[in-house]
């Protein structure tokens, strides 16, 4: 593995962790059902996928889940892994579509919804079979949060581009 890949992976992991910490600092909104989160760290994964490379996106998601595993235990880590892998896979596949060419917004929404579904699958398999009741709630929350993260990615893109050496390696020239 190239040193550059390792350092980048570390940098993206740090960004993902910082973003999810930031998200934790936001006051919980009482009207939001449990399990509904913004998913800010998905911004980093999306940046990797859309502008760098697919393996880097998988690596970042994997490392993020490993971090959750270390901090919050096996079950949370496993749910995070299921959600993360499903989300990156779906986004990677959909972004290959040439007709119709999906917008970043739709890709982000697909990623957010599949992340929720992956986690729900984990709960279904390991904790309780009656969680299917929650599917519609998680679809809607995925749609809303996916739109928000897509917009945030758009806003944050100039900042990510400022990181030295990234812009040069991007799939598309800025």
């Amino acid at each position: 593995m190239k040193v550059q890949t390792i350092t980048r992976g570390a940098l993206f992991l740090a960004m993902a962790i910082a973003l999810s910490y930031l998200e934790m600092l936001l006051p919980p909104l009482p009207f939001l059902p449990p399990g509904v989160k913004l998913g800010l760290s998905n911004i980093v994964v999306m940046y990797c996928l859309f502008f760098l490379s697919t393996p880097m996106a998988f690596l970042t998601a994997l490392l993020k889940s490993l971090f959750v595993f270390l901090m919050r235990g096996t079950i949370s880590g496993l749910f995070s892994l299921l959600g993360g892998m499903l989300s990156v896979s779906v986004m990677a596949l959909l972004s290959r579509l040439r007709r119709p060419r999906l917008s970043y917004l739709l890709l982000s929404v697909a990623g957010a919804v599949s992340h929720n579904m992956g986690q729900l699958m984990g709960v279904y398999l390991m904790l309780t079979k009656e969680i299917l009741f929650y599917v519609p709630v998680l679809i809607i929350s995925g749609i809303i949060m996916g739109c928000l993260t897509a917009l945030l990615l758009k806003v944050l893109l100039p900042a990510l581009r400022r990181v030295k050496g990234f812009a040069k390696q991007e799939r598309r020239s800025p």
Partner: protein
Amino acid sequence: MKHESKGAVLRSTFENRPLFKRKDVWVLTAATAAALVLFFLFSCFSGRADTAVIRSEGTQLMVVSLKEDAEFSPPGHEEVVIQVSKGRIRFLSSNCPDQICVRTGFISKPGQTAVCLPNRLSIEVLSPSEGTDTVDDVTGGAGR
């Protein structure tokens, strides 16, 4: 037609992708509508329930009637208080850091669950036809 090398194909997958398309509105509306329909289907098919089962790591701890109001801690879990009120049940308090179980609030429809991951506890409202765990219970308790 433009000549495309392999590199060009890869780039074109990511180039010129709009942030947002007009058609997205329809896709998102349709998805939201589908979710709402699912939601109403789920709530229509579930009537009122009168029992709930409390499980620890998937193993049945106790069965609670929702007909009588009560406040109690499940056996072996003094750190958690569960409340039954007007045919509904909820985690009243818990020592867990995230408080997701408490924020779930009251549940009353068959199939609804409230889960406290840190304490490995779950409450599930049973549908009237559904019995409590009997045969299926055997595997979950193995080795404990």
